């Protein structure tokens, strides 16, 4: 599969000027609300440190805690399955649904099932999956991936949603009122929830000590998915383990404040055992996580609690939109975890960053995101996955800049030629520079030349080294 062309994807999103402005304004609004919450909590930095330490502890004892989680879940009457990869996850889900004669699965948003491409897998086998999260449902009906881990359809304007719903749910195409649209979706989805034979949720936190999972949503859809049908499946990434019940408080306090700037999600639901007469299944999924855990520079990314603070603050994400990253996880966190899943396909993402570092400082679990992006670039270059033009440009630059004489010759050549260059040069970095910018006016001489003329006689070091 080809590498994601983030540049081209971004260019197309930027052309949708209203959508881009809307996305930027909305997400920056979330960042500001997050800042207000952070400022209202003097212990915020201590909480971040604690969260980071709990996660690092859990990840460095992951085998023990996973086994503890399984033991306790089994004792609670939950069935536990282990899935090494996406295929295994989907196969387990399919087998369970088939065994129960399920034709319709209602599902609350789960990035892990997106990661596993579960929906098309089940669709091919005759099982309909209905997303119950409003944003995720919009994306499903529009055949798009979520563009954001918390607000999946945040790149769409109300008029875009209206178009999707008019096409798929038969709503009034001229009515763009969000309340009207949300209500129609609710009316369309509720009967499906009531009739569904199985429900599926993701998992925000899996508590080893109790064998319970916690799911955070703002629409209550996870509770409906979990409680209405007799069969409840939970997809759990193995990195979601936290050791103790009391650790939950740390993460619950950080999660929604970092994500939406709200003190807590509307619904923070804890599931410990199957409901009476029902069945509950946990599917613990690796899908590359244990391999990432072994990567010295990158295992910290497993601390991620999927709050999206890094996306909301990311100036690149707010311009390019989430779909431009071409992966399930977008933004800064996507740039560091997508390459662990498919290096070739996502090798361009670490370059979709200015390394400004804002992401690292909003991260509630202190993932050194921009440092990992920097590290990934090195790995991409070492694996010879840089585009040829960039590769050769850097090689040439490395040679010129390490030889003072060559460098001086180049500067001189620049001063004599650049002022006379045609404004649009083909196949040149100048071409991309001039896409939306003017070149600076070229001076007649370099600083060094000025220095030789004006100061060198005063400088004993300068004279003998020239």
């Amino acid at each position, binding site marked *: 599969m080809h590498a994601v062309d983030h540049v081209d994807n971004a260019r197309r999103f930027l052309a949708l000027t209203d959508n881009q402005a809307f996305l930027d304004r909305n997400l920056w609004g979330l960042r500001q609300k997050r800042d207000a919450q952070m400022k209202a909590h003097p212990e915020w930095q201590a909480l971040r440190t604690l969260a980071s330490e709990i996660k690092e502890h859990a990840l460095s004892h992951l085998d023990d805690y996973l086994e503890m989680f399984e033991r306790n879940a089994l004792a609670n009457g939950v069935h536990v399955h282990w899935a090494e990869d996406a295929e295994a996850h989907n196969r387990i889900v399919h087998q369970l649904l088939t065994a129960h004669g399920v034709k319709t699965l209602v599902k609350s948003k789960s990035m892990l099932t997106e990661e596993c491409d579960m929906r098309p897998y089940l669709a091919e086998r005759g099982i309909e999956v209905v997303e119950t999260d409003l944003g995720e449902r919009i994306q499903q009906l529009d055949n798009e991936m979520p563009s954001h881990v918390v607000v999946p359809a945040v790149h769409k304007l109300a008029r875009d949603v209206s178009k999707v719903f008019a096409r798929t749910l038969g709503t009034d195409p001229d009515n763009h009122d969000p309340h009207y649209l949300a209500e129609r979706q609710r009316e369309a989805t509720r009967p499906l929830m009531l009739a569904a034979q199985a429900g599926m949720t993701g998992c925000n936190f899996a508590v080893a000590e109790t064998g319970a999972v916690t799911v955070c949503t703002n629409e209550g859809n996870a509770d409906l998915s979990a409680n209405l049908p007799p069969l409840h499946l939970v997809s759990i990434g193995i990195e979601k383990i936290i050791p103790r019940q009391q650790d939950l408080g740390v993460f619950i306090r950080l999660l929604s404040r970092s994500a939406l700037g709200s003190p807590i999600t509307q619904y923070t639901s804890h599931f410990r055992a199957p409901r009476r007469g029902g069945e509950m299944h946990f599917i613990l999924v690796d899908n590359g996580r244990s391999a990432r855990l072994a990567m010295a520079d990158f295992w910290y990314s497993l601390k991620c609690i999927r709050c999206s603070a890094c996306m909301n603050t990311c*100036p690149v994400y707010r311009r390019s939109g989430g779909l431009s990253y071409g992966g399930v996880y977008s933004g800064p966190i996507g740039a560091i975890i997508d390459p662990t899943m498919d290096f070739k396909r996502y090798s361009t993402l670490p370059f979709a960053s200015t390394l400004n570092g804002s992401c690292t*400082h909003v991260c509630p679990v202190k993932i050194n995101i921009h440092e990992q992006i920097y590290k990934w670039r090195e790995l991409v270059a070492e694996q010879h996955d840089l585009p040829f033009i960039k590769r050769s440009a850097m090689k040439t630059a490395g040679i010129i*800049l390490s030889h003072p004489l060559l460098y001086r010759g180049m500067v001189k050549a620049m001063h004599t030629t650049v002022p006379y260059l045609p404004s649009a040069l083909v196949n040149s970095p100048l071409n991309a520079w001039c896409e939306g910018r003017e070149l600076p006016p070229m001076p007649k001489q370099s600083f060094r030349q000025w220095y030789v003329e004006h100061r060198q006689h005063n400088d004993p070091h300068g004279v003998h080294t020239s």
Partner: protein
Amino acid sequence: MDVALFIPCFIDACFPQVGVATLELLERLGCSVSYPMKQTCCGQPMANSGCHKDAEATERLFVRNFAEYDVIVGPSASCVHHIRHHLDHLEQTDEVQHVRQNTFELVEFLHDVLKVEAFPWASFPHRIGLHNSCSSLRGLREASMTEIDEPFFSKPKALLEKVAGIEFVMPQRPDECCGFGGTFSVTEAPVSVKMGQDKVTDHHTAGAEYIVSADMSCLMHQQGCAKRMGLDIGFLHIAQVLNGVSEQERAHARG
């Protein structure tokens, strides 16, 4: 104080006036300034692109050029950040360690080392928007950042406040990246340009006549965007303002 002057490649080639202002300013403040003649670049363009192997020879040259000096000062936070925080691929000899620990960005040097109290020769009666580059803000911690709750501080602002006549205007998003990002500006041009446009628009809307920064690379990008957009706004390096901006420089800064 004896100081070695580090003039980054793009300032040497494209913005010699910034190098001159830095040199004159340091001399005015009583420093004895040497300029090692064989200097070129810090290695950052290659390293930021992941090409550490291609950066190594340039980084070694940097160390060779500057190792004999006690203090090295350069007017660019991103280059100084590279030297201090990213020279990890070289063998960490005494020379390398010495250079890493003793290279200062101009603002830090004036604020933390020389502790300059006044710039009596400088006057700049204009409304300015201060642009802190991400390298100076989050890399070298020259100012407080909005991501974490810390008491406000700004070393560049503290210095500029000592220049007569300056009025500061505050953009809506003071520490949002402007989108330069080194080779990012070329390889991701569409996003880079949009970020630059948004940045200069933010400053322009706030009423800035000039945007002042310790990083000329950000300014080069922003100036390019502003010019294409037809915005009337000037761009000056902080060294120029602290050194006292000539009429000619002011005219040049407004393009």
